[in-house]
């Protein structure tokens, strides 16, 4: 067993197990913390795939921003739902069935596709970080999606501020 395979198996197991905990844990804050572990596992996978930049960005954006936002939201909306009652709806078994069926289908597809089992990856690319940076701003590359993504982020920023603003006296229903 090579060290790399060992690391992959460990990271994969941690990722999947903690993802399972995310969707099954009763306490939502715990679910959010398991989510952090899942995201960290995915970031290890990115490192194994020679995408160090994405691995770090994964930690900065997902763990540093999104997970903390989610924890914040869980804490701010506490009291609406106690952590003891059922956390799943009545048709959770149907959801489970769909998920298992979907996974079986994906697995079948992966196994039956000969290209997927090709073990040896292509030659590790040289300076992929520089390449990525250039691709994101070159006209032949992804400058349009990149700009769209920035506009999307700006719109999300403004939208989030507007939506989450506490209702002031002018609008209806000032609870505060």
């Amino acid at each position, binding site marked *: 067993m090579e060290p790399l395979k060992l690391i*992959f198996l460990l990271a*994969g197991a941690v990722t*999947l197990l903690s*993802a399972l905990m*995310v*969707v099954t844990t009763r306490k*939502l804050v715990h679910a*959010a913390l398991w*989510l952090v572990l*899942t*995201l960290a596992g995915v970031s290890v*996978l*990115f490192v194994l*795939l*020679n*995408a160090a930049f*994405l691995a770090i*960005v*994964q930690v900065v*954006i*997902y763990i540093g*921003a*999104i997970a903390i936002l*989610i924890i914040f*939201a869980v804490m*701010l*909306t506490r009291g*609406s*739902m106690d952590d003891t009652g059922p*956390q*799943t*709806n009545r048709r959770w078994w149907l*959801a489970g069935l*769909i*998920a*298992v069926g*979907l996974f079986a289908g*994906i697995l079948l597809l*992966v196994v039956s596709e000969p290209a*997927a*089992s*090709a*073990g*040896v*990856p*292509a030659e590790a*690319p040289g300076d*992929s970080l520089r390449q*990525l940076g250039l*691709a*994101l701003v070159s006209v032949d590359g*992804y400058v349009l999606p*990149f700009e769209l*993504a920035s506009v*999307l*982020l700006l719109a*999300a920023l403004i939208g*989030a501020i507007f*939506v*989450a603003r506490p209702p002031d006296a002018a609008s209806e229903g000032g609870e505060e």
Partner: protein
Amino acid sequence: MIPLSWYLALAGGLFCLGVYGVLARRNAVAILMGIELMLNAVNINLVAFWRYVTPAQIAGQAFAIMVFAVAASEAAVGLALIISVYRRRTTVVAEEIDLLKW
């Protein structure tokens, strides 16, 4: 070396767990967490395909960056909506948010 199929199977598992979370959970924040799991699974696939199939083109990584941006804005707006709903109706249970239902 690690075969590509391992990554694909792992991403598939992660995606299905996310699907289960989205379909089965009652709390809106938990549903959002399921969506994040699915987005992550997609990202693993994109990067794995980039590494194994087209390492010369940077497309996989560039797409993953776009997914990051979408995930960040989705989390921001989604959580803002949830907090807003909570302020007005003091609930974050998805089935109780049914004003638009007939």
